[in-house]
Structures are given as C-alpha cells and as structure tokens.
C-alpha cells in the first residue's frame, strides 16, 4: 500500500467525516429520535399517548400508511353488530397458517343461522400478521390493522382479542390505510355493480321467460 499505515488513515478519515456530518446531515442518523423530527407527516402532540381506543399512531415508532400488524373486523358504520361484514363462513379459520382464529356462528332464537359471528377470537400471541386471512376472505370482512401495542399484564386471557375489540369502522380503516381502503372500496363497488347488473339481467330474463310462459298459457287457453 502507498504510505505506511495508509489504509488505516483512510479509514479514520471516513469515520471523522461521519462524525462531523452526523451533526449536520439528519438522514445520516440511523436512529431517528422522533421527538425532534420537524416534518409534519407524523401527528403533532407526540408526547401524549393515544388515549381513546383505536387511535392508530403511537409516539415511539414509525407506523406508516402501509404497515400491517394484527387483523381487525370491518363494519360499515353505526351499530357494529348489525352492519358487520363477516358472515362467519370460517374460510379464514381453515386457511390461517398458525390456526389462531376461532369462530362460532350466530343463531337467532328459533335456531336459524343468521349471517353473523357470535364469537370471533384471534389469539394475538399466535398470529404472525401474515395477511393470508385478508386474501382468502370473500367478503372483505377482515383487514390488517396497524395498532401493535396490545401487551396486557394478564397472561392467560389477555392476548385473546375478542370480537368486540376486533370490530372497527370502515372510516377508521380509511384513516390508517387510505390508499388500500380506497382501492378495496372501489373494488367492492365494482363487484356490487356487476352483481346488480347480473341480477337485473337475470331478473329481466326471468321476467321475459315468465311473459313467454304467460303468453303460451294465454295461447293455450285461447284455443
């Protein structure tokens, strides 16, 4: 090598350069201590911990619009239990790789299955937030939440999140994952329109068939 110990001096030059730049260049810092991050994309008032349930962001780490943690059930606003999307078809319970979902169907008083889950528990200690349940769900009823601080002092029942804690409104979903929520709603709207169109077409076909039958019947009793 060039001069004696040249490589070592070159290395020391790099560390000195990093030492000096870490005071001026903010992006060089690996641990971005968010308490003094000026840009506004994180909600202000970083100090006070989110009080009411369901508020999505906490002050300690980045929770971006894309991060997914534990699943949540969606309902379309108003009283959660009557607008819930989940129909307890138990596909996600079967498909879940670590088997952490437990569902029981809901029956009304005279035993008829009404399309609602009576019990929907997710064992958060087993769930590995792999998002397979979201993919296999035909009714877009389950999506990933980004709330990850679910630690509880109670070891036995604490980590089993019940149905009522899982239920979140659709506009909360828009708040945490705006792009994804919009795309999902748009897809659902398209499907609904397609279903209506199909139903309407089926209805017309049925009506046309009925008229034809009525016409033949009329023809029949005409002779």
């Amino acid at each position, binding site marked *: *090598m060039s*001069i*004696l110990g040249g490589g*070592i001096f070159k*290395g*020391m030059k*790099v*560390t*000195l350069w*990093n*030492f000096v730049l*870490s*005071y001026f260049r903010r992006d*060089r*810092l*690996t*641990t971005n*201590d968010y308490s003094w991050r000026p840009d506004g994309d994180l909600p202000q008032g970083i100090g006070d911990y989110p009080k009411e349930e369901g508020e999505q962001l906490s002050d300690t780490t980045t929770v971006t619009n894309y991060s997914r943690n534990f699943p949540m059930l969606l309902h379309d606003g108003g009283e959660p239990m009557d607008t819930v999307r989940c129909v307890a078809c138990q596909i996600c319970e079967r498909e879940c790789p670590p088997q952490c979902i437990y569902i029981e169907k809901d029956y009304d008083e005279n035993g008829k299955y009404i399309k609602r889950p009576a019990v929907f528990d997710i064992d958060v200690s087993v769930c590995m937030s792999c998002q397979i349940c979201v993919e296999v769900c035909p009714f877009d009823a389950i999506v990933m939440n980004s709330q990850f601080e679910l630690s509880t002092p109670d070891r036995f029942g604490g980590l089993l999140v019940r149905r009522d804690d899982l239920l979140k409104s659709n506009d909360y979903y828009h708040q945490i994952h705006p792009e994804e929520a919009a795309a999902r709603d748009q897809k659902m709207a398209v499907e609904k329109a397609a279903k209506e169109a199909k139903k309407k077409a089926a209805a017309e076909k049925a009506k046309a068939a009925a008229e034809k039958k009525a016409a033949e019947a009329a023809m029949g009793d005409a002779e």
Partner: protein
Amino acid sequence: MSLVLIDILIATVPLMLIFASLFAFTTWLERKALARIQNRIGPNKVGIPCTRISLFGLGQPAADGIKMLFKEDIVPRGADRLFHLLAPILALIPAMLVLCFLPLEFPWTKSLLPVQAFLLDGAVIFFFAITGLNTLAVFMAGWASRNKYSLLGGMRAVAQMVSYEIPLVLSAVIVVMMVGSLNAADIVKEQTGWNWYVFSPWGLAAFVIFFIASLAETNRSPFDLPEAESEIIAGYFTEYSGFKFALFFLGEYIAMFAISGLAVTLFLGGGDGPGLAAAPWLSVVWFLAKIFALIAVMIWLRGTLPRLRVDQLMGFAWKFMLPLSILNILVAGFAWHAQQQNSKTITVITWVISLAILYGTASGLNQLNRGSVRPRKYKYAE
C-alpha cells in the same frame, strides 16, 4: 493529625478528585463520540438523575455509577474468592499511584509540600515500575474466576502487556537521554517554549511508538484482545459484575490518563503552552487539554479499527516496534551529538537523514513482516 499528614492529604486528595471526575466525564465523552462516529446520538436522556432535565446526557456517568452499585455482585462457585476480590483493587492501585508522578503543579500545593513526587530523582522509572503491576492484576483476575474464557483472556493480557512494555520503555529512554535526567520536572523544563520533542523526527517516531505501546498497555482499541467480545466473551473480567466490574473500568480509564499524561510530559512538553507568563496556573489546563487530545485520538481509533490477532500482536511488538525503537535510540544519539555543534545546517541535515532512516526502516520492516498482505484484484465472468 500532624502537619505532615495534612500536607500529604492536601496533595493527594485533589489529584484523586480531579481524575475521578475526569473519569466520569471521559466515559460520557467516549459514549457520545463513539455514537456520533456510528451516526447515532448517544446517551441524551439522563440529565440530573431522577428528574426530566436531560442536559445532553451528562448525568449518564452518575446513572452508571449508581447502577453498578446496586448490581448483584456474583462470584462463581469455583472461583478463588480472595483473589477474585483482590484483582480489581490491584488493578486500581497502580493506576492511581502513578498519577502523582505526573508534573502537574496545582497552584495551591506549591508552598506547602516539602517534596513532590514528580520531583523525585527517578520519577520516570517509578512510573514504568508501577504500571508493570497492572499485568499482575489482569492475570489474577483471569486465573481467579476459574472460567476458560477468562483464563484465555488473562494469558493473552499478560503476554501482550509484557511484550509491549519494552518498546514503551525504550521510546521513553530517548527523551531521558536527551534531557539527561529522569526527573519529570527537568524533562518539562527542557521543552519549554514550543521546542517539544514531538517536533523532532526521532521524537515523533518515539512518540508514535510510545502511543501505540500505550494503547496496548491499557488494552485499548486495536489491541483490546484480553477483552475481545467476539472471541472470548469479555476476557479476564467475564465473571465480574457490579462494583468490581466498575473498579476494573475505573482502573482502565485512570491507567489511560496516566499513560497519556506521561506521553504529554515526555513528548508534548507537559504544561507548556502560550499564555503561561500571564497566569502560571494555565499549565494545569494545558496539561489536561493535551491529555484529552490523546484520549480523543484513542476513542477515534476505537471507533474505526478492528482487533489484531494474538500472534500478529506479538509479531508486531517484537518484529516491528522493538527494532524500530532500538534504531531510534541510535539515531537520537547521533542527532544529539550533531546538535552539540549547534550550527543550523548540521541540525537540518541530521533531521533529514534521521527522518529518511526511520521511515525507510519502518516501511522495510513492514514489508518484511507482512509483504504478502496486499489488496487483491478480482476477475469478472460475463
């Protein structure tokens, strides 16, 4: 309490207080500087303990100290209890003892004390004699904790310290030869007015060898083999926790202060610096400033360099440092005689020749020892 004892107390207590508080400051400085080198922020949460004021994390040493006090002090069952306890104490005693040989004239002690340690006739010899005790402490720790890793660490430490003490002493011999006396105050007096020894070629070479050997003596960065985390967990203080570990830590830092203090005395002109005429007490400030400059370089090295292997470490000491320091003594001898004629041209010529000889032998030795070690070229396949 007779007068003599009070004098001794007046001399030693400030020395201990100043260097203990400097120790606390250096731990904070090291963690902050290392953090900044690694693009982190370093401790900034602990200000005044148990309040929310965080003045740049300056309370961190206090917090560490309190933590160390309350940590459980585990002694392994098979260990030799007496020696396990004695080792950290023996690591601390020489480091503290040696501080009194540094030529630090505190303003208030000038009048009182009949004899000051650094005015001793053999101050430099005492310095090396007492730093030698550190080897024993490390060996005792390694052997007493009866654990394979610390045994390995202890053996490595003893071998490393013994073989690096020789270049350390030989490079100090040059300055003593130039000054003609072992007395620390005379050495500093010789270098007043900016003609420090580090500015002469043989002085610079001696300073570099002294600095590298002092790194090895205090187990600092490229030579921190005795406590190599990645290989033998924490070397000789694997089995130490709680306050005994803190004592080792304190011992290592005070040894760092002591050795860089000697380096400053021998090569950087002790308390010499501008503005001394105005305020004589400035010499203490200059002395500590130079020590902190050396410690900053040590921290900088710690943030950059990986560790040497044991046999390379030994090879470097015996096959590179030792011959170079012996040659340096010869060169310094000739240069001293040439200087006696004190004609400008002769000194310049001797400086140039000695610089050439020293650099030539250094790179020659380096080529001899590690000739085949070179960055390699690689082929590419399409």
